[in-house]
């Protein structure tokens, strides 16, 4: 990571003139040289930020805090009133929907115009056109004028273009408003790869996305920087500020305490260290990189991979709290000494929420032409609402190494509509919840005082 900032803003500010009376506008025009007839309103003021190569920065804040204005100034579509922006490298921006596109031109024409604006030559664009069209995946609409596009198709085209111009910096306003579940997985896979080397700047109201996708966050309030720090810290302070706004008695509202790292689990606090993982009988656990799977060598094929209900019926909509089985059907094309199945389940951000594999099960041999099914049965947690993608893998375990035979992604989705009120990524069912009054000292519980309820597991 070079330490030179790719995006650098110094004392950045944008002011607008507010004329209290229409006549003031005329006065300003005539005598503005001598006296000001308007009030200045600063949408953004005094923003200093340096973003280094490979860094991801989120901009958070309420509506009207200046987030979009700041992004526009950084991309150069809005001229700052004061301060300056310095950019090194190619900046691709996805701002308000459709900005930069001409509604009368076809998708194809817009891609060519857009790419040339971003500095690609005609030949380069022609060479990449297929990749862009494949990414957008809007079929024959590519040759229709943009005004006939739905907003989803618009977003697909814009993202496909930005993803294929070798941008050094990607600027995105509201990162998650793109397309359907499958397209979103595609975008997130691209973004996660892009983040490894590129610089990402985005605005989001989704604290989950901020926590997951960025290294630092910039918090704007009424156009000024209220905080700049780790995403976790900014999320925490922003939450507290929102709670303060809601409190009836703001005078009494207080914020305090110090953050501690888990290193605070100093030897004095912690119990005697536990023995390291006991050796287990049988095979070792499977280790592979799901984000960058090894090359498939073939020899077996995944026929289907699906979420099923407890009775084996295919499941497409779930709420959480029910028994779910993930089934992976595989057919062997040759003899496989020891077959191992694995799956991962990704959320809308493309991050793996949970996964499992059969590496700890007894070994299974498959002869050529034989089929097998792996079943993972579990109680589905109360996942956050949204679409979840199932990705499945089949490996052959051999003495020396484990090789990937076949891999399938983005074919199967589970739509979750959860009744659970918490916004955790994987909430679990409580077996019992109780609130009871206790004696001021000691731990004995007092018989049901104000409220007590035990829930049978559900």
């Amino acid at each position, binding site marked *: 990571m070079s330490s030179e900032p790719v995006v650098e803003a110094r004392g950045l500010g944008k002011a*607008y003139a507010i004329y209290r009376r229409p006549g003031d506008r005329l006065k300003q025009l005539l005598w503005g040289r001598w006296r000001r007839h308007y009030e200045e*309103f600063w*949408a953004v003021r005094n923003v200093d930020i340096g973003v280094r190569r490979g860094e991801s920065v989120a901009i958070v804040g309420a*509506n*009207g805090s200046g987030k*979009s204005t700041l992004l526009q100034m950084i991309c150069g579509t809005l001229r700052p009133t004061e301060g300056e922006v310095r950019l090194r490298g190619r900046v691709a921006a996805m701002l308000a929907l459709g900005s930069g596109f001409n509604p009368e031109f076809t998708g194809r024409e817009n891609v060519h115009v857009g790419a040339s604006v971003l500095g690609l030559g005609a030949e380069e664009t022609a060479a990449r056109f297929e990749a862009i069209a494949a990414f957008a995946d809007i079929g024959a609409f590519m040759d229709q004028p943009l005004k006939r596009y739905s*907003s989803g198709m618009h977003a697909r085209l814009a993202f496909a273009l930005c993803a294929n111009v070798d941008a050094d910096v990607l600027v995105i306003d509201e990162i998650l408003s793109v397309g359907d579940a*499958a397209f979103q997985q595609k975008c997130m896979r691209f973004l996660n790869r892009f983040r490894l080397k590129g610089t990402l700047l985005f605005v989001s109201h989704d604290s989950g996305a901020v926590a997951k996708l960025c290294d630092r966050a910039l918090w704007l309030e009424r156009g000024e920087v209220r905080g700049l720090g780790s995403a*976790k810290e900014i999320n*925490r302070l922003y939450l*507290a500020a*929102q*709670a303060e706004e809601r409190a009836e008695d*703001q005078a009494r*509202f*207080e*914020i305090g305490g110090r*953050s*501690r790292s888990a290193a605070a*689990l100093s030897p004095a606090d*912690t*119990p005697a260290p*536990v023995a390291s993982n006991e050796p287990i009988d049988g095979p070792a656990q499977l280790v592979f990189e*799901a984000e960058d799977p090894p090359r498939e060598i073939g020899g077996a094929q995944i026929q289907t991979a699906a979420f099923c209900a407890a009775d084996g*019926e295919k*499941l*497409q909509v779930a709420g959480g709290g029910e028994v779910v089985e993930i089934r992976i*059907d595989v057919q062997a094309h040759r003899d496989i000494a020891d*077959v191992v199945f694995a799956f991962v389940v990704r959320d809308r951000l493309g991050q793996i*929420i*949970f*996964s499992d*594999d059969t590496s*700890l*099960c007894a070994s299974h041999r498959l002869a050529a*032409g*034989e*089929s*097998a099914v*792996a*079943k993972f049965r*579990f109680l589905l947690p109360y996942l956050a*609402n949204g679409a979840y993608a199932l990705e499945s893998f089949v490996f052959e375990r051999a003495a020396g190494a484990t090789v990937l035979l076949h891999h399938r992604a983005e*074919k199967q*989705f589970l*739509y979750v*509509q959860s009744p659970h009120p*918490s916004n*955790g990524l*994987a909430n*679990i069912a*409580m*077996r019992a919840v109780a609130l*009871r*009054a206790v*004696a001021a000292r000691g731990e004995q519980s007092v018989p049901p*005082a*104000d*409220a007590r309820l035990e829930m*049978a597991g559900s």
Partner: protein
Amino acid sequence: MSAREIVVEARALGKSYRLKMRGAHPIIGAATEEFWALRNVDLTLARGEALGVIGENGAGKSTLLRLLCGTLRPTTGMVHAEGRIAALLELGAGFNPNFTGRENVWLNAAVLGLSKAEIAERFDAIATFAGIGEFIDLPVRLYSSGMQARLAFAVSAHVDADILIVDEILSVGDAAFAQKCSARLEKFRKSGTLLFVSHNTGTVARLCDRALWLEHGEVRELGPAADVCANYLASLAERAEAEDSKARSQPARRWKPLEPPPLVNDPRQRQRNAIAISPFSDDAPWHGHGGARITDVSFRDNAGTRLCEIEGGTEVKLSIRCHAEREIAEPIVGFMLRDRLGQNVFGDSTYLALRDTQRRMAADQEFVADFIFQLPFLAAGDYGLTAAITQGTQADHTHVHWVEEAVMLNARESPVARGIVGIPAIAVEIEKTTATA
């Protein structure tokens, strides 16, 4: 419910466009194709009813709303609506971008039939609701999409509309504003008629009595909101799968929760997932308006002994001890486990379990909230456990005492190779199936 007054009625409603085909002659033109954006929609809405309209992009949702509020003329059929209609259609519709927010409020309210005196009287309420500060005196073209949505919603919330038509507007606002809008819509529902378009089936199911599912311009289903939403989601899932030619075709199915949590038999249980628990810190980052304090957060065994280590995949009891300094009505005690990045892993509160009981914390009383649950396997790393006392309801509450990282957890060894959590499996097995013919 039966004899309620009908306020919106549409019969055989349809709208078609002529699309110019590619390759049409530039002068003679000709080659056009008729395209029905909406066709054969019959709909009646009674006073006080809330209808959600769902469907994919391009299904005709916006066309329907525009026909209903009269900004588009139907090709076939008729629409009849009684009373004042306030519509929040696509962003910026109804606003003149070169006028200031203030001017646009006056214009819009006047178009909706408010007198000058009425507007003057309500202007402050509208501006306060919108909460866009100084921007109110700037031209609307300088507004972000969030600010436009705020202003549009604020106007329509203050014109005493009989019928409110809302198109996906909550999605562009920040969380605080979205909450304000939802509260307002809930309130409006009690008296007025609501038509609501959204991609978010969760919101539709919560807010609406009935839902209308449009597909390719036609009515696919009209019925109780929860049922229609579930069927819609199932069809989306089916579609994603249809591309997968090898998938066995099986009918979609709705979830139903299954009873008692079954026993777990996960091979990963043979490995250790020891999680060290730090003592409670009363100087952890906290906020709140006070009245009660969290005095201890601990994991305990059945005998009530404090644990300094727990094991992933086993059942644990989390106890949050509170001291009420003054009486707290409707307290909610909750927790959230956050990972190293601050992402919420899981959490819960006493709200749902206890909402039907009288809840009150008497002044100067000690309280303990217990949560008993099966811990998932946790990936190796650090976690912070947030504990909180809030007051009110799940949707609308204030923070009494909110302690971030009240307890720190550290999973030193873990069988979770990938992912946020390891879900304990009931069974993992491989079966041979007969070779396919």
